[in-house]
């Protein structure tokens, strides 16, 4: 960057590098500029989330297909532990036998899927983008590999949960019952309170959904950014004096390791929290105020 040599090889500077990594491979061909644009779709997020979902569920299905009530194999035992964990949480939160038939597998799906999507963070930040650029032959091709670091990915999940909440609200309380609740809870049944109640309910649903999606997104986005910044340290290695470059390279090694280790914790925890909140919100849909 400081030398003319760097500019000549058209290596990206730090800002370009990070921004390039934060650009999705979408149908418009360049990073989206307006905040909301439903004519654009992110191919990479859809592809990686669907692929991870299919792979994860295929593995689970492989195990479940040959499940035996006799002595279980290791894979089955592991899956059983997972299912018992999710099943117990579902039992504690959703008090409806019939709904649990769908809600508990849903929670399992959320946990496994979010965990797998979060885990894409552990791949080196440049590995898949570099492969993609090599395959397409376009050195500027965009690709983001972590679907949960894309707001669409996480909000898609939380909006899905919101829709299911609506579904269960209507199913359990009936359409009339639910509308009645929308206008009479939480403050009480009085004509003057109808509007405040409804506004409160709207705020509650919005806040739930946005915080549900934003929580996962924020964690993964910050994690991805930190990995990018750490990668910048290592990348600066050739363009600096040997001493400073070595220090930066060492810094990349140490901080990268530490952050990756801490990120393992975050990945599992956030997947678990996402699952728990899904259960809690769906459980709330079953309870009348």
């Amino acid at each position, binding site marked *: 960057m400081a030398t003319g040599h760097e500019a000549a090889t058209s290596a990206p500077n730090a800002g370009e590098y990070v921004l390039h990594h934060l650009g*999705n491979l*979408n149908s418009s061909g360049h*990073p*989206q500029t*307006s*905040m*909301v*644009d*439903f*004519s*654009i*779709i*992110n191919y990479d*997020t*859809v592809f990686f*989330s*669907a692929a991870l*979902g*299919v792979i994860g*569920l295929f593995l*689970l*299905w492989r*195990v*479940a*297909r040959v*499940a*035996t*009530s*006799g002595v*279980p194999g290791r894979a*089955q035992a592991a*899956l*059983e532990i997972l*299912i*018992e964990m999710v*099943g117990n949480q579902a039992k504690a939160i959703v008090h409806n036998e019939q709904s649990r*038939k*769908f809600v*508990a*597998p*849903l929670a*399992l*799906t*959320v946990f496994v*899927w979010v965990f797998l999507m979060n885990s894409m963070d552990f791949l080196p930040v440049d590995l898949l983008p570099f492969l993609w650029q090599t395959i397409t032959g376009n050195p500027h091709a965009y690709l983001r590999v972590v*679907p949960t670091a*894309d*707001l*669409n*990915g996480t*909000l*898609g*999940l939380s*909006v*899905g949960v919101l*829709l299911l909440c609506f579904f269960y609200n209507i199913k359990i309380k009936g359409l009339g019952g639910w509308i009645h609740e929308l206008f009479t809870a939480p403050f009480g049944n009085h004509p003057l309170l109808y509007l405040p109640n409804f506004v409160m309910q709207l705020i509650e649903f919005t806040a739930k959904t946005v915080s549900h999606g934003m929580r996962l997104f924020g964690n993964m986005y910050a994690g991805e950014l930190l990995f990018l910044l750490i990668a910048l340290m290592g990348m600066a290695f050739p363009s600096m004096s040997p001493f400073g470059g070595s220090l930066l390279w060492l810094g990349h090694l140490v901080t990268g390791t530490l952050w990756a280790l801490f990120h393992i914790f975050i990945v599992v925890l956030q997947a678990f929290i996402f699952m728990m909140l899904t259960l809690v919100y769906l459980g709330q849909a079953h309870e009348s105020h």
Partner: protein
Amino acid sequence: MYLNATLLAQITVFIILALFTMKYVWPPIVKALDERAAKISEGLAEAERGRQSLALAAKHSAETMREGKEKVADMIAQAEKRADQIIEEAKVQARIEAEKVVAAAKSEIEQEAARMRESLRGRVADLAVAGAEKILRREVDAKAHAEMLAAIKQDL
């Protein structure tokens, strides 16, 4: 930070995956778990039953043992008592027998003695008479002293 149609795709994928899990992943495992739980509880109940019957059998055998011991002890005590009784009876019998023998011997001896005395009495009288005859041959007349002699004879 940009929203677009990916959101809708994500919702669709989400619901499809959840439905797949509900249909193909969750039920077999839960079924296996339930079956195993049933099997294990059955096995535990079986073990409990086995343990109970074992305890019962042990109790039973201990009781039989105790009964047997009691019976044996009883028998021994009875036998000892019987033996004592027999010995006692034998002793009594022996004493009676001995007394009988002694009594018989005594009476025999007494009879003998009486007979001896009788015969001796006669002989003594004879002897005395004979001796007195010899002494008194000359001085006394047998007729004169017959009265006295009869008195002596009576005294003997």
